[in-house]
């Protein structure tokens, strides 16, 4: 039986590899808050992943509850933060973006969060000129 020629196998694998490298988003922060986003009907997809900054709002996860209690927290990158720190976070994120006017802030907040937290964040976002926000949600019919 003649042996199969496998010399093109690496090229093939590389092609698949490049595909995944392009579609992947490495921004996977370890979540320190748990949240169930609301469900809506008029949702839009988040285009341009590179221009999106995420703000997580919710109570600490079960493992961290003993240490931090169960009041609502705001998570930026890998740590808890106060609303006023959002401005620095936005500026930092903006600096690493190629198209700074396209910056979108995605707010991933728990359904039961009190609006006070969201209003504070919104106020800071306005002051930092990050006006495009996206309230993260799941689709419902």
């Amino acid at each position, binding site marked *: 039986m003649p042996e199969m020629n496998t010399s093109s196998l690496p090229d093939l694998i590389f092609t698949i590899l490049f595909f995944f490298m392009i579609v992947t988003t490495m921004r996977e922060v370890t979540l320190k808050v748990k949240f169930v986003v609301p469900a809506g009907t008029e949702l839009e997809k988040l285009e341009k992943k590179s221009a999106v900054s995420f703000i997580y709002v919710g109570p600490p996860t079960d493992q961290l509850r003993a240490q931090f209690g169960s009041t609502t927290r705001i998570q930026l990158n890998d740590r808890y933060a106060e609303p006023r720190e959002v401005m620095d976070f936005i500026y930092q994120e903006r600096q690493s973006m190629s198209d700074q006017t396209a910056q979108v802030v995605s707010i991933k907040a728990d359904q*039961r969060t009190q609006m006070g937290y969201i*209003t504070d964040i919104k106020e800071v976002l306005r002051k930092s000129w990050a006006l495009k926000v996206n309230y*993260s949600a*799941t689709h419902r019919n």
Partner: protein
Amino acid sequence: MAKKKRKVPGLNASSTADISFILLIFFLITTSMDTDMGLARRLPQPPEDEEVKQELKIKERNVMEVRINAQGFLWIKDGTGSGFGDIRELRSRAKQFITNENNLSVLPEKHPINIPLLGMCALTDKHVISVQTDRGTPYNMYFQVQNELVAAYNELRDELSKQKFGRVYGALTDEQKVAIRTYYPQKISEAEPKNYGGN
């Protein structure tokens, strides 16, 4: 100096496949193919001077107020009346407010405006829907209200697009979209304007 030509030994490339396989598996695991969805909103620009309060005079008939209290109850007020309302009636109420089909004197005033592709139209371009919340309002309720209001606009735009161009809003050309957007501008105020001007 005739140098003896030496043959370059071929590089053993048999492990490239393995290396790329490892990389492939790494990206397969870290990738998140799920697309993030959400309700896109635009915040108002920051006030230029904290001292100067907005002197915007908005006629009362042009304002629809939606207040959500800490218990998550809705209170809706427009020219036709005010009182506690249900989230399910908000969409139709908003549509009725935005269109003012019968040109009632208590709903937003209409101005004739010339829009490219649509011609002269009477629009309620001065209307504002103001959403006010309490610090204790559940986020979910706020989100649902926003969702219903955006839905009202989207439905109106779709209706108009079908009537004028025979297609839904999403399938229009950019030019047509601009025309429809001028007809039904989205005016949901997220700021907290406390004092509106008189009648």
